[in-house]
C-alpha cells in the first residue's frame, strides 16, 4: 500500500497509467497530481466520496475530457494528446458501461448491442446477430432483444449496456457505478457478471463504485480517492491499514457522522418566518 500509488503489473506493461494527472472543471478542482497504474487482466475499483473525481477518472481514460496536466496512458498512448482519429483507434480497445446505461433510446436492445458491430465490424447480418445473441446470453439477457430501453428495469438496462460494452471484445472495460440504483440482488448479479467477464475474456476491468462491500469482494486492486490525496492497494491490505483516512472511509462511524450532522443543523441560524406560514 502506498500514498503515491503505483500498481505494479506482473503481466507486462499496465494498460492504464495515470501519470501525475491534475483535473479541474473551471475553478473547481477535482484532483491533483494523481498517479496510478491498472495492471492487465485484473479488476481494479476506484472508490471515493461524491465529487472526488471517480467518474472523471474513467472519462479521462476514454478521452471524453482532457486533464489540466499530466498524462493518461492507454496501452502506452497518451489519450489527452490524441486527435479524434487516433482516439478512435484507442477507443476500439475500450468498452464503457455508463452509470445510466446510455443506451440509444430509439433502438431496441438488439439494435443497441448490434450498433458498434454495424459501425465498425465488417460482418454479415447473420454474424452480427450471432455476436449480439452471444453477448446478451453472456449477461443473462437473452429474451429482451425486441424491447426498447424504456421498457427495461434498471438491472436490465445495466446488463444490456454491459452486453453492448463487451460485444466488440474490448481489452479494457470501464464501468461507471454499475451497482447504483439497483436492488441488492440485481447488484450481486452485475458483480458476478463482471467477475465472469473478467475470467472468461481476460478483460482488464476498471470499476467506479461507492459500494465498499462489493469492492472488497471483486477487486484485485483498489484506489481510494480522498480529499487530500489517493491511496491504493490490495483490498485485504487496505482493510488492515493503519491509515486513519482509509479506515475512516472503509469503516465509517455512521453514528458519529449523524451526530455531527445533527449538531450542525441545530447550530444553523433559523431565519424568522417572513410569511403567513
Amino acid at each position: 500500500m502506498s500514498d503515491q500509488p503505483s500498481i505494479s503489473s506482473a503481466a507486462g506493461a499496465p494498460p492504464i497509467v495515470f501519470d501525475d494527472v491534475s483535473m479541474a472543471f473551471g475553478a473547481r478542482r477535482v484532483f491533483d497530481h494523481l498517479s496510478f497504474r491498472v495492471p492487465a487482466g485484473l479488476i481494479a475499483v476506484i472508490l471515493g466520496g461524491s465529487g472526488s473525481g471517480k467518474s472523471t477518472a474513467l472519462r479521462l481514460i476514454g478521452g471524453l475530457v482532457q486533464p489540466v496536466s499530466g498524462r493518461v496512458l492507454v496501452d502506452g498512448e497518451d489519450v489527452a494528446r490524441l486527435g479524434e482519429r487516433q482516439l478512435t483507434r484507442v477507443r476500439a480497445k475500450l468498452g464503457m458501461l455508463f452509470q445510466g446505461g446510455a443506451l440509444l433510446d430509439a433502438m431496441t436492445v438488439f439494435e443497441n448491442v448490434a450498433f458498434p458491430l454495424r459501425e465498425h465490424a465488417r460482418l454479415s447480418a447473420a454474424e452480427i446477430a450471432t455476436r449480439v445473441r452471444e453477448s446478451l446470453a453472456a449477461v443473462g439477457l437473452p429474451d429482451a432483444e425486441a424491447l426498447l430501453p424504456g421498457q427495461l428495469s434498471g438491472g436490465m438496462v445495466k446488463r444490456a449496456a454491459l452486453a453492448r460494452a463487451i460485444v466488440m471484445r474490448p481489452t479494457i472495460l470501464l464501468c461507471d457505478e454499475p451497482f447504483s440504483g439497483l436492488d441488492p440482488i440485481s447488484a450481486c448479479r452485475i458483480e458476478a457478471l463482471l467477475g465472469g467477464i473478467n475470467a472468461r475474456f481476460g478483460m482488464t476491468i476498471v470499476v467506479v463504485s461507492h459500494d465498499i462491500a462489493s469492492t472488497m469482494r471483486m477487486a484485485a486492486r483498489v484506489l481510494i480517492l480522498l480529499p487530500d490525496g489517493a491511496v491504493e492497494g490490495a483490498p485485504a491490505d487496505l482493510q488492515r491499514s493503519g491509515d486513519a483516512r482509509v479506515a475512516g472511509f472503509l469503516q465509517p462511524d455512521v453514528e458519529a457522522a449523524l451526530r455531527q450532522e445533527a449538531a450542525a443543523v441545530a447550530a444553523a441560524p433559523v431565519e424568522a418566518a417572513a410569511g403567513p406560514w
Partner: protein
Amino acid sequence: MVTAIRALGGATVDAVAELGRFAAFAASLARSIVTPPPRVGRLVDEVFKLGVLSLLIICLCGAAVGAVLGLQGYNTLVRFGAADSLGAVVGLSLIRELAPVLTALLTTGRAGSATTAEIGTMAVTEQLDGLRMMSVDPLHYIVAPKALAMLLVMPLLSALFTVFGIFGGYLVGVRLMGLDPGRYMSSLQDAVDFRDDILGSLLKALVFGLLVGLISTYRGMTTAPTSAGVAAATTSTVVTASVSILLVDYVITALWGV
C-alpha cells in the same frame, strides 16, 4: 456608471464569444455532412420526423391563413372595385412572405424545439458520450442528419403551405364571396413570376431551414446537463430561431427584393 459599462462590456464579450462558438459549430457540422459514410438512412428518418409529421399542421395553417387573407383581401379590394385581383393578393402575399416565414416559425415550434430537446436529452443521459466511446461522432451520426433534413424539408413545407393557402383563399373568395374562379386564378397567374417570386420564396425557405437547423442542433449540443437545462435550451431555440427568422427575412427582402 462604471459597473454598467463593465456589465455592457461583459455582455458584449459573451455575445461575441457565443457567436464564435456558433460559427465553429456550423463549420464542424458542414465538415461532418460531407464526411463519409453518408448517413442516408438516418437522413430519411429525420426527413420523416421533421417533414412528414409536420404535414398536417402546415396544411391546416396554410389553408387557414389563405382563408383569412381571402376574407381581409376581399373586404379591402371590393372598396376599390378591385375584387378580381384577390388571387394576386393572396398568392403574392403567401409566396413572397407569409409561406416561408410562417412555415419556418411553425417548424421551429414543432420540429426545432423537438430537435433541441432530443439532442439535449441524449447529452444529459450520456448517449452522446456513449456514441463517442463507440468511436461514432455524434455530430456525424445524430446532428448532421437533423440539420440537413431541416434544410431539405423547409422549402417543401413552404411550397405546401403556399398551395393550401391559395386553396383557402380560393374557397373564401370564390365559394363564399362569389368571385369568378377564372378571374381568381388568372389574376394569380398574371401576378406571380416564377424566378422572382417562386424561386425567391424557396430561397428564403432554404435560408430559414438552415437557420432553424443550425440553431436547434447547436442549442441541443450545448445544453446544460440537467432537466432544467434541456427546458431552457428548448425555449432558447424557439426564441432565438423565431427572432432570427424575422430579422433575416427583413435583410433578404431589403437586399434582394424577394
